[in-house]
Structure formats: C-alpha cells, structure tokens
C-alpha cells in the first residue's frame, strides 16, 4: 500500500513537472523585434497546410533556395483538425515553423500566444502596399507596427449559378435578395432548389452578414464586444429562415455526397460562395461542366455594390520557430511571386491576396467549366467591394460550433437561426470569460 502511494506521488510529481515546463513555455512573452535576424548556414523549415498542390509550389522555392529548404506537411482543413493539432503542438512546444491559418482563426491563435510578430523581419512591413487593403487589416489586427501573418488568398463572394437552367426556365438572374426569393419560388415550382442552406458553414453565413454591413466582433484594446445578434445579423437570419420555412432551399449537410449530388444532378441551382468555391463545384459536380456562370452577389438594396468574404487564409510563423527571418522570406515569396500565385491558382483556385496577383494572366483567362467565362473578373470586382472592417473573435472555433449546433436544429425544424445566434452569443461570451479574455457582457 505504501509502495502504491509512493508510486502515485512520483507519477503526480512527474506530471506536475511536465505541466510546469509546458506552462513556462506558454507563459513566455513575444519574440523581441530585434530577434528577426538571419540564421547562419542551411535552414530547414516545416510548413503545415491543406492547400492541394502546395508541394509542387514549394518544390520550386526549394530548387531556387538551397539554403532555405521547406518541408510541406499536409493535414485536413483548419477547423477539420489542423487547428487543433496546431494548438496542441504549440502547447507541447513543437509547432511547425509555418502554418496555414484562415483569417477568421488568426485572433484565436494570437490570443493563445501562438504567432510570431514578423514586423521586424526584412521587408515585411513594406509589403503592406503589396496586398489588398482588407487582407492586411486581417493580419495586423489594425495595429500599424505588427504583422502576424502574410496574407495568401482571399474569398470574395459572388454567385455561382446554373446559366443553362435559368435560361431554359426563363428566370431572371437575381441581383437583389428580394429577387433571389422570387427566383427561389419559381425554381421550387420546377422541382429544384435555388440553393442549399449550409448548417455548418457558419463562415459562409458570416460572409452574408459581412456583405450586409454587420460586424460580429469589436476590439477596442481594453475589451472585446460580441454582437452576433445585431439588427443586421438578425435581418440576414430572418431572410434565410423564411427560405427554410417555405422549403425554398435544400438543407443537405454541406461537403457530403448528398450535397455534391444535389448540385451534380441539377437539383440545386446557385451557390453563394467564394472564389475558391470554383474548385469545389468543378470537383463535386463534374457532370455539370460548362453549364455554370458567375455573377455578383445579390444586394440588399438595388444598386448597392457590396460583397462578403468567405475564407481566405494566410501563412503564419508560429511562436517557437527558430528561423523567423527565413520563414518570413519564404512566406513573402509564396504569397507575392507571380510563379507561386499562378501555380496555387491552378492547383487550388486560390484567389491571391496580393494586388499584383490580380493581374496574373492566369486570372484573366476564361474557365471552361464556367462556359469559358473569365470568372476571376467577377471576383476582382467583388474583392474591391469587401468591407475592410470585419473583425473576427478570439474563439471562432467555439462560436462556429455553437452556432452550427443551433443551425442544425433550425434546419431540422427544431428552432430558428435567430435562436441559434442568441445561444452562440451567450456561449461565446462564456468561452471568452472562461479564458479571462476581457469582454463586455
């Protein structure tokens, strides 16, 4: 018995030591600005990403830079598991040097002290003018003297639609949300659905709110404000609730075979999505090649010119990387060089966040899947119309989970989108309070 007690004591002590060391690393403060100096000799960097074809792009860099070799590790998309791995790796002190992080997750990583401020690294602050304004706002959190990641791509939203079906049924392409409802009624009469309301892509819903001028989070430096239930959000929620209630939209869980099938079989006619969505339709609905087209998002008021944004990501350097100088150099090349951006657009339909990227020849060409329409011209217009003021909260994974739980109930007829957002609001404040993140209640 005594032996057992001692064993337990030893085990607990060991555990405590492990825990305390873990604590010490996570408690240490940020990299000193002067610390971003070149390393001596050959440097090996690790880079975790889920972008298809990234290996090929990185191979081009590796060939040209024998002294800075980057090794690509792939994982599932961010909220699909890679972010959780990042958080675990950060806590364990063995995060990769570089990681793919979407804009909506950046505040979460910063609040967990996971990002290296790259402002001191060569050329990073000067790169500001190379990027579309709002994307830079996402990586510097509105602070002039910091840069927490290099923007990679943006997700300006537009409307993908089945040009052939609209034409054959003599239905006008909607330019306002009111017209979108009218079109939805007509399409339903033919047996189809105008679109699928996604129960788990809360970032798509955020894009709708973004377009309508809503803001979910504010950070005044002292405290966060959470506002998932402001009048704009409520208006957007009521709009979709109406379509759901009247069975004018399908509610297949997104990214499933059922969902692909709904588009591939012509049951769903439009998708309000981002530039990268071009890839999703082409791979999910291959039988509909050539029948799609892209138009600007429907507006809340006729004549308005506003677009939302869905997704888009950045290349961040994690806290603990020994080579921030080299990592930043690679990240800048990856996200500004014409060669890299062209390759990433080809392999993953990434729409560059770099201004120079918008003029790439590859982005001027017609795309066969979309009836040879030069679809990126539409996204260029949309990109310029994205409001730069949308701020993401520091616990977005949790906010998405909670709102999605409610949206799932709503599409099953057991609640409303509005109720889901109210629960999301309360739970987000609770989650922030639980981590002592100052928040207005």
């Amino acid at each position, binding site marked *: 018995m005594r032996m*057992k007690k001692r*064993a*337990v004591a*030893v*085990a*607990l002590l*060991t*555990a*405590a030591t*492990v*825990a305390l060391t873990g*604590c010490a690393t*996570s*408690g*240490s*403060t*940020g990299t000193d600005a002067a610390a971003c100096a070149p390393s001596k000799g050959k440097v090996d960097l690790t880079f975790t990403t889920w972008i298809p074809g990234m290996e090929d792009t990185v191979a081009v860099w590796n060939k040209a830079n024998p002294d800075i070799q980057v090794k690509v590790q792939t994982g599932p998309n961010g909220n699909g598991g890679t*972010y*959780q791995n990042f*958080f*675990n790796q950060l*806590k364990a002190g063995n995060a990769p040097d570089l990681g793919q992080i979407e804009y909506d997750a950046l*505040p979460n990583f*910063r*609040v*967990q*002290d996971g990002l290296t401020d790259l402002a001191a690294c060569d050329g990073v602050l000067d790169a500001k003018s190379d990027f579309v304004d709002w994307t830079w706002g996402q990586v510097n*959190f509105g602070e002039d003297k910091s840069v927490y990641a290099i923007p990679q791509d943006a997700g300006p939203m537009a409307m993908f639609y089945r040009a052939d079906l609209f034409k054959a049924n003599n239905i006008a392409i909607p330019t306002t949300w009111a017209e979108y409802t009218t079109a939805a009624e007509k399409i339903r009469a033919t047996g189809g659905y105008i679109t699928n309301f996604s*129960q*788990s892509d809360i970032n798509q819903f955020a894009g709708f709110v973004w377009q309508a001028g809503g803001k979910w989070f504010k*950070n005044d*430096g*002292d*405290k*966060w404000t959470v506002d998932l239930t402001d009048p704009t959000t409520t208006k957007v929620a009521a709009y979709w609730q109406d379509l759901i209630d009247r069975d004018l939209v399908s509610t297949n*869980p997104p*990214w*499933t*075979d*059922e969902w692909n*099938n709904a588009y591939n079989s012509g049951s769903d006619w439009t998708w309000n999505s981002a530039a990268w969505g071009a890839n999703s339709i082409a791979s999910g609905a291959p039988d509909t090649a050539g029948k799609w087209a892209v138009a600007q998002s429907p507006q809340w008021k006729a004549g308005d010119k506003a677009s939302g944004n869905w997704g888009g990501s950045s290349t961040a350097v994690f806290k603990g990387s020994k080579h921030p100088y080299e990592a930043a150099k690679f990240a800048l090349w990856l996200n500004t060089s014409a060669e890299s951006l062209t390759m990433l657009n080809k392999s993953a339909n990434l729409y560059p966040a770099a201004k120079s990227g918008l003029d790439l020849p590859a982005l001027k060409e017609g795309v066969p899947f979309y009836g040879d329409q030069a679809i990126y011209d539409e996204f260029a217009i949309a990109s310029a119309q994205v409001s730069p003021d949308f701020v993401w909260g*520091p*616990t977005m*994974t*949790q906010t998405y*989970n*909670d709102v*999605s*739980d409610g949206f*799932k*109930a709503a*599409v*099953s007829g*057991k609640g409303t989108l509005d109720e889901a957002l109210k629960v999301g609001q309360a739970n987000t404040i609770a*989650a922030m309070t*639980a*981590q*002592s*993140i*100052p928040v207005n209640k």
Partner: protein
Amino acid sequence: MSAPAASLTDAPGRAARPSKSRDRKPRAPKVRVQHTGAILAFVLPFGILFGLFYLVPIGYAIYESLLVIKREGTFGAATEVFGGFSQYILVFQNGPFWQSIGRVLMFGVVQVPIMLGLALLFALLLDSPLLRGKRFFRLAFFVPYAVPGVIAAIMWGYLYSPNLSPFSAVTENVNFLSADLVLWSIANVVTWVYVGYNMLIIYSALLAIPTELYEAARLDGAGQMRIAWSVKIPLIMPAIVLTAIFSIIGTLQLLAEPQVFRSFSSAVTSTFTPNLTVYTTSSIPNVNLAAAFSVVLAVATFILSFTFLKFTQRKEAK
C-alpha cells in the same frame, strides 16, 4: 464443475478493472517473496509503460483541470494559475454535457443488452453441434470488428443517406439521420461492429467448458436447448459480465461514430456524446475545462462499471 467456474470467475475480476486498481488484491501475498530483483525485472517494462502512458497522462489531466487561465488585455498572453475546483463547477453547470451523459446512458441501456444478446446467441449457435460451417460463420461474424470504427461509420452513413443509399426506397421514407432516429442508427453501427468481438469472448468461454458436463446432462435427458440454458449460460456468466463491462465503458466513451455522423446528420451536435464534448472543448482550445470534463467522465465510467461488477458479483454469490 467448480474448477472451470472458479478459473472463469477470476477472468472478469482481473480484466474488467484493466488498470486503475489492478494491484489491489493480488499483491498482498506476494510482498514477502525474496526475489525483489527478479520481480522488478519482470514488472519494470510494464511499470514504465503503464506509468508513462497511463499514470502520467491521468496525473497531467488532473493537474490541468485544477488550473485556470489569467491574462491581461484583449490579446494578453495566457498564464495558468491554480484555480481549485472552478473548472469542475463549470462542468457541473454545463447542461449539454449532462444531457450527453443521459443520451449515452439511454443508448447503453438499449444497445448493450441487444448486442450481448446477439453475441450470446451467435456464440451458442457456433458451439452447438447443430450448426455446419462453423469456421465460416465464426469468421463472418467477426469480420466487422476488423473494419475500423471510422470506416464502418462512413459506410453505414452512406447506406443511411436519403438519396444516395442503395436502399433509397427505404431511406427516402425513413430518415435514419433525423433527430429521432440517429442515436439508434449509431447504435446499429456499434452493434454491427462489436457483436462479433463479444461473441468471440463468449465463444472461447464456451470452449473451456469440459465436454463431460454435456455428456452428464445428456444422460440426464437434457436436449440442446436445455443444455444451453442450464449448463452453458450459467458457466459462461463471468464472460458475459466481462463483455458487459467493456460495453458500458465503450458506450460512455463513444466518439468515432458520432464524430463521423456529425458531418452528414443535422441531429448530431458538437456535444452529442460526453467524449465529443471533451473534443469540442479542447479545440477551442480550453484544455483546462476539457481536462475537467475528462476526469468527471472517467470517474463516472469507473463508478458505473464498478457498481455493475459489484451488483453481478453479489448475484453470483447468492
């Protein structure tokens, strides 16, 4: 009669408490043995691994669950400070977590008896002289267990899907992924996977029964049904108890199947089962609260399996 029964009764006692209190009973008489070095040499490999991959993580989880995060400012760096039982207070105030415990308990009350009933039935059939092609059936029943749980869930998810299922005539009319049915659809997947596994445990217990007992029963005029009911089942009761305890533990720790179903069912939320709640909480990431959830779940699992064991042992003693 008593020999095999006794050796079988030992089995669940040892295996059902896989680790936590393993050294409680058998240790006492061994303390006086002189060969300390030899004992150490034999125990050390196990002890080291057990400590590293069991005790240390548990200790670490308990430690983490006693901490809270403090920070200054909207992006202030986090420091972990001792917070006593404040995470546990949050656990006990968390409605969805307790709902999820209720959900898996309901799941267990229905699914475990069905699964073990089927396993017992299949084992008895395999053991009876009436069945031909035993080897084939033994393998056929066991094969689903060789399919990884995630793959099984994806496969069944496809079979359940309303429009794409090969049985869409059924699934278009009955939504197996709806809020009313999804728990039982998952129960079906779990049953499909684990019946063969439990059957094998019960079947090997049946094989250990000496054949003289059957001869004696036959001489007394018992038929196959009577032998199964009055000889076989009482003798393999310990094995059934063992599988029941494994199943109770497995039920409370359901994760893979609901996690897979989450992506294609509107009814599976991020807090559908206790382990899914732990997973979701740790992805916030709020490791301290997730650790507290895990500790509470572990204690609940332990209490439940221990109560079940005590309950069945007392019954046996009678």
